[in-house]
């Protein structure tokens, strides 16, 4: 009765997609693997190096410094953007013309190209001519110059990311919130739940899935961020905002050390994959019980 029709011709339909994926993902990745285990001096001449490049990367202080900065940056961003995004989503109107207004307002930062965001904030934060830089220096009387002080550079990078990406968290949380049926709030009202209990026992659990996606996306994007801080600070002052991706580009294109850069890329990729996998499994573990 339950026999399903099997037709292997179906594979033909998948083939074009497979070729496409091979060209834009698998082949470049294999090229990186190829570089990571060999040394080349150009002219298409390769010498086998084994795991030398990996050893070099794993033993270099420079790599750990960049990695540390990367984790710190991502950590700070998640700590700020997730609660802030939830808070904004909670205060957004649920019906009326305010809804479209808020949604459009929230979408605007997401629509701006990354390098434009970097350039905007660069000018905005300049201490002499930028509104933000000028205001901090002259109205708040705090010495602020992101091109010279590491702390100011970090502050600006984080502020920029919060401005650019909190909206994503807001929109996802908002979608989760409006999908909660009214009966839940009504029942909570009848049960005498305080606003905090409503948040803790209704809104937060119902947002769990979208929050998982929001945290994953923000983790991956901020962990691999390149354009915005590069345009804003160029990794400086000194190496203070040289995150892993910026350092990688320096090694690969600045110093033309393709072998170590390839090894570094693969380690980088595995870290992102591992953290995402662990996080996702932790979040979903409770679902199954």
């Amino acid at each position, binding site marked *: 009765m339950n026999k399903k029709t099997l037709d292997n011709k179906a594979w033909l339909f998948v083939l074009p997609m497979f070729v496409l994926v091979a060209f834009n993902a698998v082949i470049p990745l294999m090229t990186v693997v190829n570089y990571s285990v060999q040394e080349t001096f150009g002219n298409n001449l390769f010498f086998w190096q084994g795991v030398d490049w990996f050893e070099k990367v794993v033993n270099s202080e420079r790599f750990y410094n960049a990695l540390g900065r990367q984790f710190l940056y991502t950590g700070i961003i998640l700590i700020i953007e997730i609660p802030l995004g939830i808070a904004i989503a909670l205060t957004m109107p649920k019906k009326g013309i305010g809804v479209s207004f808020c949604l459009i307002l929230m979408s605007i930062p997401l629509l701006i190209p990354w390098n434009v965001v970097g350039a905007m904030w660069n000018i905005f934060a300049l201490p002499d001519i930028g509104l933000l830089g000028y205001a901090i220096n002259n109205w708040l009387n705090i010495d602020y110059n992101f091109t010279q002080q590491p702390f100011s550079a970090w502050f600006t990078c984080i502020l920029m990311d919060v401005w650019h990406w909190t909206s994503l968290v807001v929109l996802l949380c908002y979608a989760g919130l409006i999908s909660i*049926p009214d*009966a*839940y709030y*009504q*029942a909570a*009202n*009848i*049960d*005498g*739940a*305080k606003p905090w*209990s409503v948040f803790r*026992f*209704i809104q937060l*659990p*119902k947002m769990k899935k979208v929050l998982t996606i929001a945290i994953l996306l923000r983790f991956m994007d901020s962990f691999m961020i390149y354009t915005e801080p590069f345009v804003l600070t160029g990794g400086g002052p000194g190496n203070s905002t040289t995150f892993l991706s910026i350092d990688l580009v320096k090694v690969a294109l600045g110093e033309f050390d393709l072998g170590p850069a390839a090894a570094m890329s693969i380690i980088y990729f595995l870290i992102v994959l591992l953290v995402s996998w662990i996080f996702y499994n932790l979040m979903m573990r409770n679902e199954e*019980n």
Partner: protein
Amino acid sequence: MARVKLDNLNHSYVSNPTSDDYVLKNINIEWNDGGAYALLGPSGCGKTTILNLISGLINPTSGSILFDGKDVTNLSPLERNIGQVFQFPVIYDTMTVYENLAFPLKNRGFETAYIDKKVKEIAEILELSPSLSNRASGLTADGKQKISLGRGLVRSDVNVLMFDEPLTVIDPLLKWQLRSKLKELHHEFKNTMIYVTHDQTEALTFADQVVVMYDGVIVQVGTPTELFETPKHTFVGHFIGSPGMNILPCDVNSQNVTCFNHPIKTSSDLKNIKSNSKLQIGVRPEFIKFSPSGLPVIVNNVSDIGRYKVVDCLIENQRIKVIVNEGDDIPSGKAYLEFNSNFTKIYEDSWMVS
């Protein structure tokens, strides 16, 4: 427990409503302490609105709601101290069954020992004891609905327990069990219970008194027997009973009622007819029988329901349904019908003439 009284209640979901905007029109009703009541009507007739007005989730446009004579119209749901079970089960996913049941008591600041005693007592009655420490989200739909119910029952001083089509998502067999459970609980706790449904079987088996609503108006309040024998409105006649009441056109002159030029005896007093507008005769299929003389009809179709047969008769394109007991003879072709005059009523503008 409390007496619930709705006094001149009107409600509209728009501000500054015109007469067309009202979903509830002039509702006056009083429910006794400890009674089991059903609100019956088709979808969209305003049943749920009444429920939400009583629980305080929405405020009426005009009129007032009284619990034991005390005006509660402006009180919050929390202050009204009521319990409500919704159409779809509402549970707190992250809590255990125990925590779900304890939640309303905890919010009201009761002592842990009292909460524990109460929760275990209610869980025992609802047969939830074995799953008390399980996560509530893992339960089946009927289990979840029991939790919703339990959250109303744990508060022993709750004024009224309300049910908004609570069995919609439950399997048929469990539906029946849960309904018996509700009746049992009512006997045990003597709570005032109001049960909203569009299913006549549910309403008639659950309630001592059924309130039938149609288009924002209460058309009749009565026991299941009253609704069956003397429907006050053609809608009640049609909506309750299976098949519903036969509604036939008729002519009335000073003394006689005729239907298709055939005299019919009714129990309505012809003096009570006011305007002579849109007069109809209503008689249930149960109160019609075949006889040697009477209203001439053609037997069109017979369907066997099991315990009885429904005979579909025709007179000048007008259908008349007749219920015949199993084993009784059914004439074929031309036949004559006799109406039981005690249960044959005249309806004027859809309202019964007494």
